[in-house]
């Protein structure tokens, strides 16, 4: 499972910059959301807000406490996002399903509003757009395309391992118990309210760190508009398309969501030629992406993971 994160270390800087680094950041965000939605069965549409909280927390920490080493800053930013997650998860104590999902939209819109309104958060930059600090750990710079990729890879590998341990721990089983049958979980001694908030906290920690990677390693700038509702939906797509309740799913889904638009853009440019304006191309991409999402869901509602498992099973069956 972790082997999926290991990508050949040869490649052009375009590959690192435009594909692998955003892939890792989004896969990590998907992983975080999958803990919440796939394992604990709690639906959230506020992932982008938690990414934003993580990213802006890391930015402010490195700006105002430059003495902290970067890993500590990122960890602390994750904690801030986790706190935001616990607060945003409070409605989960009383609401379920779509009622909860819509409630998390409150977080989404509130964070966007706060980032635009409170200038202090973006160091009073008039546009709200700020440059991310340099990626330097213990004197080693990770500034070039490959370095930023490796940095992201290290963070993602670490957190994926932690998540892998988590879902196999008693806490992980508590999450699944709540998803599958809340009343039964309660009877068997799972502290439901506490575990739900814990799920929100853990998930938001990972999503927040993903936000740091997205801003620091991929875009190298922070702007509130980058963490809008579309991003939240994108992350939810990653989880659903990849497969709910599987750690691999987040990576497969992120691959689908990141690589597909690139292929579509290339294809579109190749087929339609340069005569088409970018607006038309964008619309076509949107349509094709929508159709593909629907097609995957119809073909394999359990996600790409199930598709992959079946394919592997079939191959094994043939070999035997």
């Amino acid at each position: 499972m972790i082997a999926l994160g290991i990508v050949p270390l040869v490649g052009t800087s375009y590959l690192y910059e435009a594909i692998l680094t955003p892939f890792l950041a989004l896969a990590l965000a998907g992983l975080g959301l999958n803990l919440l939605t796939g394992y604990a069965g709690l639906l959230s549409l506020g992932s982008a807000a938690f990414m934003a909280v993580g990213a802006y927390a890391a930015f402010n920490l490195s700006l105002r406490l430059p003495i902290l080493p970067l890993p500590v800053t990122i960890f602390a930013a994750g904690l801030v996002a986790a706190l935001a997650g616990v607060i945003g998860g409070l409605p989960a104590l009383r609401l379920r399903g779509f009622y909860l999902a819509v409630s998390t939209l409150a977080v989404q819109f509130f964070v966007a509003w706060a980032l635009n309104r409170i200038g202090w958060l973006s160091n009073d930059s008039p546009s709200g757009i700020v440059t991310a600090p340099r990626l330097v750990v213990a004197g080693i710079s990770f500034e070039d395309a490959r370095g930023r990729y490796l940095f992201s890879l290290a963070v993602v590998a670490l957190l994926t391992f932690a998540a892998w341990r988590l879902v196999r721990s008693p806490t992980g089983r508590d999450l699944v118990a709540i998803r599958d049958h809340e009343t039964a979980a309660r009877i068997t001694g799972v502290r439901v309210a506490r575990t739900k908030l814990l799920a929100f906290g853990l998930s938001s920690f990972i999503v927040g760190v993903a936000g740091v990677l997205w801003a620091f390693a991929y875009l190298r700038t922070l702007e509130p508009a980058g963490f809008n509702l579309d991003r939240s939906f994108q992350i939810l797509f990653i989880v659903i398309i990849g497969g709910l309740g599987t750690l691999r799913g987040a990576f497969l889904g992120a691959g689908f969501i990141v690589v597909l638009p690139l292929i579509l853009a290339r294809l579109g440019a190749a087929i339609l030629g340069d005569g088409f304006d970018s607006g038309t191309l964008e619309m076509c991409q949107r349509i094709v992406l929508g159709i593909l999402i629907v097609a995957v869901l119809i073909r394999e509602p359990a996600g790409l993971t199930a598709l992959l498992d079946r394919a592997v099973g079939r191959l094994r069956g043939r070999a035997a």
Partner: protein
Amino acid sequence: MNPDFAFLVEVIVGGLLSGVMYALVAIGFVLIYKTSGVLNFAQGAMVLFAALTFVSLLERGLPFVGALAATLAVMVVLGLAVERAVLRPLVNQPPITLFMATLGVSYVIEGAAQLAWGTQVHGLDLGIDDTPFEIGGVLVSRFDLFAAGVAGLMVAALTAFFRYTHTGLAFRAVADDPFAALNAGLRLPRIWSAVWIAAGLVALVAGLLWGARLGVQFSLSLVVLKALPVLVLGGFDSIAGAILAGLIVGAVEKLSEVYLGPFIGGGIEGWIAYVAALAFLLVRPSGLLGLRSVERV
């Protein structure tokens, strides 16, 4: 009348009337959720599609009635197509999968609408001038009143339909217990098709009114975000709840904008409705009308 009080009344009335517009979108959601358990995120895209089609036909010289009829036909086809191509193969899938599918559908509809009709902003004039007039010292927008009237008519029509027609009875049976309905010989696919058509028609009405208000453009599909807190407050499955919640959300939004906005900064209408809906549910978890508690702990 005390001018401060008159102003307060004016704010509340304005809020209530814009709340009617929210309820208009929310009703489209309710229709589909009630009968098939699908939270149809594409409702906003359908609103955009209807408005864009109508205004584009109008601009191409069709008369008002002709454009309306053509758009009506298009919306019927669209509703049928979505139900047949997307929802029917996904029957019995978990609600989250269905929701994701409708998100995919909304991409397709938004893309197609703008591909076909362009991305520029269109003005839409329904022939109602938006001059405010005075009732007892309170200024009221003529257009808002008209919109409220249309919404009222639509709700009355829907209510009558549900209460007095055979299909309406079938709708209610399916909403109540799909298995029992199936057992009684009702054909579920036919009912789902009908309900998607109905949602398409509601989207048309909402699209025309919202389009006249905001101009017909992409952001029209974002009216779903206005409808969602209304749904949480009123319940996903209650038309009466949607209307009541729409009124409350509209009033709360305007009141907080006017009286709270100066203290914490403008632009709070993006999230205040959600917070208000949540606060209300914390006090009364069974929701506005106390209908059911399936989705609530």
